[in-house]
């Protein structure tokens, strides 16, 4: 019988090794899997490559991993914010490598990783600093950059509701990067507010299909903090 539920976030992240590539969903604090991040700060894996859109918008996001010296590379579109000081310091002393990726290219590279597309061309970033060194190719008289897929060893995603199979339903703009990151990792771990019986989710409304989710962590109502406050 399929059962992807782990009782504790700590158990769900226990096998993450030093040097792993980690995709982290969320847009600022919205749809942020902050409990999985907290568990990973306790677990302590180092030299992580972290792919996440915003770094520094909130203290309990990727910023927590940076401050805890667990990150050696960041790929993001927005590396600034009130909690970016530790990132900036580590960039300046060379402890962290930063790759800034335009937001749409970041999303599309992750989608490609999940969809078996190794590379694609995009108009975004042509003739800019972020396109330097990338292959430029003309289609129909317009220039495009070649961009390669991003695949994670692990993805941390946040959703509202799951079922035992691992189907996920999100709430409003909680979706953001979560559905696409869920498709693009060898092991996708979802933290959710509730888990319902198989068959209870409307089949028309499931956004992340069960096949993409490998582990589920149910927030216990104490640690989840930020989310229930706003419900």
């Amino acid at each position, binding site marked *: *019988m*399929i059962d992807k539920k782990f009782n504790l976030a700590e158990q769900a992240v226990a096998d993450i090794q030093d040097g792993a590539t980690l995709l982290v969903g969320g847009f600022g604090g919205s749809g942020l899997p902050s409990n999985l991040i907290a568990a990973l700060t306790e677990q302590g894996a180092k030299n992580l490559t972290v792919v996440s859109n915003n770094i520094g918008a909130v203290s309990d996001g990727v910023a927590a991993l940076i401050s805890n010296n667990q990150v050696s590379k960041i790929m993001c579109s927005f590396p600034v914010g009130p909690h970016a000081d530790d990132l900036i310091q580590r960039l300046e002393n060379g402890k962290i490598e930063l790759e800034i990726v335009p937001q749409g290219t970041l999303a599309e590279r992750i*989608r490609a*990783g*999940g*969809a*078996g*597309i190794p590379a694609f061309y995009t108009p975004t970033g042509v003739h800019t600093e972020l396109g330097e060194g990338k292959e430029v190719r003309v289609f129909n008289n317009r220039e495009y950059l070649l961009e390669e897929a991003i695949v994670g060893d692990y993805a941390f995603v946040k959703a509202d509701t799951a*079922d*035992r*199979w691992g*189907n996920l339903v999100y709430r409003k703009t909680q979706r953001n990067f979560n559905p696409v990151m869920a*498709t*693009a990792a060898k092991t996708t771990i979802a933290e959710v507010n509730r888990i319902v019986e*198989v*068959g209870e*989710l409307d*089949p*028309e409304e*499931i956004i992340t*299909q*069960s*096949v*993409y989710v490998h582990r589920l962590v149910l927030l216990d109502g104490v640690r989840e903090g930020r989310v229930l406050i706003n419900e």
Partner: protein
Amino acid sequence: MSKQQEKSIGWTMPVLAAHVANDLEDGWCVNLGIGLPTLVADFIPEGKEIILHSENGLLGLGPKPAPGEEDMDLVNAGKEPITLEPGGSYFSQSESFAMIRGGHLDAAVLGAFQVSQYGDLASWKLPDKLLGRVGGAMDLTVGSKRVYLFMKHCTKTGEAKIVEKCEYPLTAKHCVDRIYTDLAIVDVTQNGLVVRQLAPGVTFDYVQERTAAPLKKGEAVTSEIESTGVQT
């Protein structure tokens, strides 16, 4: 290599389907190709959850609906009315093939015209036909974690379908992992074709005579031959 096969020998297709179903692991997500492979769905053992994928945009394929309960908006990849299991979901074709090509299906069980000793597959076009029907076959074979063939060992006219090199147009190279036929179950390995299991009453030589590529005896086959003393 064009040996006629006795009608009564080997596994029936339903029994073969049960063998395939037995080899699928609990929790796998599996695509069953149009035609014969769909038989496998009927033999999934009780208590084993296999999530069936249909490439037109559905996970959690259920059995055929009762007569009169057909819903034309709920069809499988063969365009036949089906049902949805609890836990199932709908999505678009582009999402469905992102799932396939992205390596998210644990196995695809497909039919074949020919398969080579290297696991090359020909399944979408006969050389004498104007038109092929590729559908999702090329995507399923390059994308699925495992490709299992479910097929008769020989054509209706007794020609071997397992060959040294495919003569028919290829679906994909080096894609097949295992071949289930009425006569045997054959693994495609780096050391060539290895017979994993023989149908009851079928000898290794009988299968080899109906196969246009060299076969090897797998461990289970060798030990069965040794223990029963049956000549192969």
